[in-house]
Structure formats: structure tokens, C-alpha cells
């Protein structure tokens, strides 16, 4: 390294770098301080170095691509080990199973039928009763529509109404928890059947539902405002409405198609 000794020798770049980081050898420190105090050229070089290194700090970080979190989770989840069991086991275990009642049962029946569109007849109607000629499409579309309607109501209340009070928010959290498990099943079903548009909306819905369900009991009004702003910014309500409307149309189409079919003889 250059710059040692006399006042006529300027400080080297290496010396300035170590000085900037406060890593100059203790023995060299007085010489450096004295030289810097007296040498205009080294002061200028030092200032220039400081500006460059400060500029580095001001640079915005490189951002991950949109949807990155989703991809991370998709890769991560299979590697996490089974402390919570399979998706099916968890679904049956959830206490909200009982609360979700008819809707979950309908989704499950339709899901078991293995299709998001098209399929063979199953035997459960949207009101939970057995109906011999209800197709799985009709059952599923009605169930998804019902789920989306419930989600819509909850999000609308959250966004438009004053739920800053702890009691009111606790109620929304309970509803969000109920909706999460059902949402996941429907989303998986939609993804498996290649209905990417529905799966995407349900993925975003699930993220928001999780956030609501997992929020602390003493959530602050600022945090709530942030959450509402995110729901609004994503156009989530609008997108849920669109899918719900599409499901209603599909249900109507299913019903009309079913009405045109000849009655099957009862199975004896």
C-alpha cells in the first residue's frame, strides 16, 4: 500500500477504504487523521469514495417477480414434513367442518367425483338433501357459488363496514377460518382440472382469508386499514364476484341440461 510516511505522499485508495469502514490499524490512525485534516486532494478523494458507497446504500433492492410467494410455497410445502398430516386428514379434522356443513359436504362429494366440469351423476343437492339426478357439476358449481357468496359477504363487510372493534373483527376471523379449508379444497380441485382462472382468484382469496384468520386478536386499526387497502388494490371483491356470477351461470346451465335429460329409473 502506498501513502505511508510523509505528508507529500497521498493516502492510497486502500487506506481510504479501510478508513471509511473504520478498520484502519490503530497504529496508523493518527497519521491518517492528520493527513486527511491537512490534504485537500485526499479529502476530495475521501469524499468521492463516501459518495459512491452511500449511493450503493440508496439502491432499491431487486424485487421478486409477481406471484413469487405462491411459487415458494408450492415448492416448499411438500418438503416440510408431516406435522399436520395430509390435506384430507386436516380437512376432516377441522372443527369448522361442522360449521361449514352443507357447503363442505357438497364440495367434498363433487371433489370425490373428481371433476370440476363434466361428470357422472352424484346424489347430493345444494341444500344438503339427497337428490338422485344432481350431477357433480351442478353440485360443485352450486357449492363453489355458495362459498364465493359467503366470502363476498365477509369481505364486503370487512372493507365497507366499521369492524375496528375487537368483537366485530373476532367474528370476521371466525368466518375467515371457516372459509379457508373449504376454499383450499375448491382451489385444489380447480387447479387439478386446469381451471387456472378460478384457481388464481381462489389462491388470492385464500391468502387474504389466512391473513384475517391469523391476525392477532388486538389488531390495530392501522393494520386493518392496510388489509382493507390490499383487498381493494387487488380488486379481490370484484374478481370473486365475477367468478361467483360465472358459477351461478354454470349452475343454471347444469340445471337446464339436467332438465333436458330423461329421468333415470330408480336403482333397485
Amino acid at each position, binding site marked *: 500500500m502506498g501513502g505511508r510516511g510523509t505528508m507529500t505522499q497521498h493516502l492510497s485508495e486502500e487506506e481510504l477504504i479501510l478508513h471509511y469502514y473504520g478498520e484502519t490499524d490503530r497504529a496508523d490512525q493518527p497519521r491518517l487523521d492528520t493527513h486527511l485534516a491537512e490534504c485537500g486532494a485526499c479529502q476530495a478523494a475521501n469524499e468521492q*469514495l463516501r*459518495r*459512491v*458507497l452511500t*449511493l*450503493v446504500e440508496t439502491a432499491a433492492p431487486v424485487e*421478486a417477480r409477481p406471484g413469487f410467494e405462491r411459487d415458494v410455497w408450492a415448492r*416448499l410445502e411438500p418438503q*416440510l414434513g408431516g406435522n399436520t398430516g395430509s390435506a384430507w386428514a386436516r380437512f376432516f379434522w377441522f372443527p369448522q367442518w361442522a360449521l361449514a356443513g352443507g357447503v363442505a359436504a357438497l364440495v367434498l362429494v363433487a371433489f370425490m367425483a373428481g371433476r370440476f366440469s363434466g361428470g357422472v351423476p352424484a346424489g347430493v343437492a345444494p341444500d344438503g338433501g339427497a337428490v338422485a339426478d344432481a350431477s357433480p357439476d351442478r353440485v360443485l358449481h352450486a357449492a363453489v357459488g355458495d362459498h364465493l357468496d359467503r366470502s363476498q359477504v365477509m369481505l364486503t363487510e370487512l372493507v365497507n363496514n366499521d369492524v375496528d372493534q375487537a368483537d366485530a373483527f373476532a367474528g370476521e376471523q371466525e368466518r375467515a377460518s371457516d372459509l379457508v379449508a373449504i376454499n383450499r379444497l375448491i382451489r385444489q380441485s380447480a387447479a387439478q382440472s386446469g381451471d387456472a382462472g378460478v384457481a388464481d382468484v381462489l389462491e388470492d382469496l385464500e391468502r387474504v382469508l*389466512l391473513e384475517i384468520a391469523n391476525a392477532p386478536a388486538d389488531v390495530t386499526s392501522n393494520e386493518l386499514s392496510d388489509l382493507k387497502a390490499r383487498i381493494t388494490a387487488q380488486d379481490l371483491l370484484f374478481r370473486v364476484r365475477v367468478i361467483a356470477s360465472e358459477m351461478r351461470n354454470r349452475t343454471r346451465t347444469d340445471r337446464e341440461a339436467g332438465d333436458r335429460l330423461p329421468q333415470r329409473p330408480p336403482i333397485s
Partner: protein
Amino acid sequence: MDERDAAVVAKAREGDREAFRALVDRHSRYVFSLAHRMTGNAQDAEDVVQEAWLKAHKQLSRFEARADFRTWLHRITVNCSIDLIRGRRHREDAHDPADLEQGPLSERGAEAQPTPERMAASTQISDRVNEALGLLTALERAAFTLRHVEGMSIEEVGEKLGMKTSATKHSIFRAVKKMRNALEPFVQA
């Protein structure tokens, strides 16, 4: 700790998969940016993100509840980045010890050079800085980032990267010189 994190971390520690997912959703972008700063390319950064979350999941029971989750995660991410850089260094050492000194990890070649056209097209300071960082070798970048951004001493950086202090110092010197050459035109008084 962030109150929202505290509640979710508590649930995640009890094995609640959805709570852990909420943490992944909330922090993955931050982890990615940090990993990218350390490694210098998106693919390596994504690998680091995965590894960091796996480690976090495995070590969650040891996480001190009063600590800040993001700070804890930050440390894990830095360590995972270092593991990746060191692992690659050892593997590449077997072929050519100078390999890591020849250019940026995954942007070697003429494309990585900030041509006048690219420099002129870029008006954002962040772009300029990131271009400049792209000129550093993997080791220079790691050493510089650990010293300049993470605030480790040169000796600590050397320990982390498995390098002698003098070699670490020279990596940092080279990094700063490159940054200075690339950025000086934008900080002229």
C-alpha cells in the same frame, strides 16, 4: 417483534401449517431481495429462499419468542447465501481456483458489461448500482455485501467465507474499486 408476526409465529411453532404459510407469504419477497443482493442472480436467490425457509421451519422451535422474526430470518438467509457461495467456491475450486475471480457468478461474458447503450438507457440510480454490483465476482460481491451492507468486520467476513483476512481485504478493495469506477460519473461534485 411485529405483533402480527408474534401471533402467527406462535401458531406456526405449534405446528400450524397455515400460520407458517402466512409467514412465507409475508416475508418471502424480503428474503428474496436479501438473497439476490448476496448472490447476484435470481436463480441462486430463489434457491436460497427455499433453503432459508426449510431451515426456519426446522429451527422454529428454537426461535426465541421475544426476538424479532424478520431479524432471525435475515440471519438464516445470510447464512444460507454464504453456504451457497462457499459450496460453489469449493466445487469450482476443484476445476479452476481462479474461476470465481473471472466475472460475476452467472452473468459472465460481454453481456454483463455495462455498455454505453445500456448505461445511457438506464436512468435509475438503482439500475446503475445493480449493474455495478453485477460486475463483481461472486466472492467480491459476497465480501463487499457482508462488509458494506451487513456491517460485519473484515475479519468476520473472512471467517464466514472461509478466507484469510488479507484475501478478504483484497476482495473488498477490488469490489470497491469496481463500484467506484462504475458509479463515480454519477457522484461527481
